[in-house]
């Protein structure tokens, strides 16, 4: 049987959780297929930068890869639903919505396939959003009013606008300096970045809003997938399901370990149910704006999340 090579492009290094996630996919697939499928991982953006992955995989330039979900927004604007604030009530709701086979996933994955030619294999958890601040903790929507806030996406900017703040789009690497020099008042980032980028040295309060998620997607060129034998196809889909859950469990466990560790370095604030309700009310306009501006799938995606 001829051996098929699956080349995988990844922005992050092999040692990163996402790299490990692909390696565990590799070991399952290679073992179950009896060597008829071979996975080659090209980490650290050796082949493509993150923003090129949708096109590279979609066009078949490379067989598979991981990209930040937001990278698909140019072709499927509705994927940014993941950034709509406080749409997912809690961790359980988030897990249900993002797992393979959910209503939301079906709508988005189908649209991504249709628009780009990339088949979504699984979603890769990366972390959840937190707010950073100096002087006093952020508890209520009013704490954002009049503040200059670092964001990392368009919808997150809408959130800040809805709360009466001024959003500034800024890459992750520029955060430390921006906080240190007080170029912005409030930070928005993933919890793990607070540790890895040592942001606790320049911000002393962290609010675990966990209001939106940061997700990557593992995609495969659809033509390539269709060209595989039925048994190999199901091996890939099975493996995807396994490593999807693996990574999500691992990431959320790591996140809580990091938060515990950070408690000694900064003040960590949780939001009560009551407080979350206030945030949800204050950002309701973002949902409307999302439905209005994000095209045909936006409304059905929101409905899919809200219908339980």
């Amino acid at each position, binding site marked *: 049987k001829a051996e098929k090579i699956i080349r995988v492009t990844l922005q992050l290094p092999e040692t990163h959780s996402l790299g490990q996630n692909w390696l565990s996919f590799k070991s399952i697939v290679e073992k179950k297929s009896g060597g008829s499928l071979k996975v080659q991982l*090209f980490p650290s953006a050796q082949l*493509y930068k993150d923003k090129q992955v949708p096109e590279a995989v979609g066009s078949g330039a490379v067989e598979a890869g991981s990209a930040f979900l937001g990278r698909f927004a140019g072709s499927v604007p509705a994927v940014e639903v993941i950034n709509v604030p406080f749409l997912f009530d809690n961790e359980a709701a988030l897990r249900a919505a993002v797992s393979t086979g959910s209503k939301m996933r079906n709508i988005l994955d189908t649209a991504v396939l249709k628009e780009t030619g990339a088949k979504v294999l699984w979603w890769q958890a990366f972390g959840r959003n937190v707010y950073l601040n100096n002087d006093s903790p952020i508890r209520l929507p009013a704490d954002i009013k009049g503040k200059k806030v670092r964001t990392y996406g368009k919808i997150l900017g809408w959130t800040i606008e809805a709360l009466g703040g001024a959003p500034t789009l800024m890459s992750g690497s520029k955060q430390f300096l921006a906080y240190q020099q007080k170029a912005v008042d409030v930070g928005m980032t993933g919890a793990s970045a607070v540790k890895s980028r040592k942001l606790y040295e320049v911000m002393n309060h962290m609010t675990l809003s966990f209001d939106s998620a940061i997700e990557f997607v593992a995609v495969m060129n659809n033509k390539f997938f269709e060209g595989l034998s039925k048994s190999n196809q199901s091996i890939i889909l099975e493996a995807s399901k396994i490593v999807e859950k693996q990574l999500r469990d691992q990431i959320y466990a790591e996140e809580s370990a990091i938060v515990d560790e950070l408690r000694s370095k900064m003040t960590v604030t949780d939001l009560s149910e009551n407080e979350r309700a206030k945030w949800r009310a204050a950002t309701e306009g973002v949902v409307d704006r999302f439905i209005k501006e994000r095209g045909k799938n936006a409304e059905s995606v929101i409905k899919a999340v809200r219908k339980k």
Partner: protein
Amino acid sequence: METIIILTALIALLICRTPVAAALGGLGVVLLYLKELPLVSVPQRLYGTMDSFELLAVPMFLLMSNILLRAGVGKDLYSAVQSWVGHWPGGLSVATILSCTIFSAISGSSVATAATIGTVAIPEMTKRGYDRTFVLGMLAAGGTLGILIPPSIPLIIYGVVTETSIPTLFLAGIGPGLFLAMLFIVYGVSYSHLYGNQRSDEKAAWRVRLRETLKVLPLLILATTIIGSIYTGVATPSESAGLGFVLSIIITVSMRRMDWDKIKEATYTAMKTTVMVFLIVAGAKVFSYAITLYLIPQSISQFLTSNISDPGLFMLAVGSTLLIIGFFLEALSMLLIMVPVLFPALEAMSIDPIWFGIFFVILIETALITPPVGLNLFIIQAVGKAKIEEVAKGALPFVALMLATAVLLWFWKDLTLFIPYN
């Protein structure tokens, strides 16, 4: 085996005078085709390569250098430095290297530095009886400081390719850059003392010194703005380069040194150099994509790390390879071809990527002044109306100094790493 065939093909193409960009890009395409890898990746690579804000520093620094060159700023700078040190024995060698050093703090390119200072310094020095071969060599070598002392175009490209911090790389270049400048001065003064029969200047009056120094004040402000804005975090390297370019126009226009024709010339020249550089970068990206899919960098670094366990020996092997490659390859191509191959091995050898960037740039400097292919040799040959052999002969002692510095860098890592990490 595959590796050797590919390397031979590349060398053959380059010897056939294939433009480096086309040799890399075309060979990359052929390699992809032979393994039935999708060619649609080629335009994707090409777009992705140029879609980089960091790379913008290249045209911006080139625009600025070209504006300054045409405004005759080199002459001002040289006269000012000369008024301070010209009366020393061998003083003009000091003036030349100091001028190169100061200009290096503005310019990111060794060619621009060699051309700007060379135009003024070569006639001044030979007029006073300095040995011609020595003068030509000194200018060729002094010009290379332009890429070690920040800002530096090769360091920008190294940073883009390896995703290391460009400001950190810049900081790391300061120590070795000043050290090398000092070595050049020591050599220059000793040589003039031992073998020269040159005349020294009259000691300039304080009034003259003041007048000459005031003339270069705008230039010093420009250098301070560029470097200062990067390190205070006010601007990224690309932004400060853009700012420097606009400031250089404002300064030279207000000094009445700039007119529309000169601006036009500067703009066209900067564009040609930029596109020439960028096409090589683009070709190299296609080539490195192909060899990555052939697993060549991975197997070379695996070979190196499994056969050489001592990092010192590893660096010796790398350094010798780069020295030899540097005879033939143009500086930037050397960077773009070799870095993707060597970089994976660095982590295994626990070699600091910032340190390695500086080490690499010193070997690029060497390559710039070793025959047969050395861009600075060509520039000085043209500026000084000399034979290439003459320039190369004069540059030889400087090559030795650079190699010594590269070795020293290994044993004294703080020369590089102290400034960025403290």
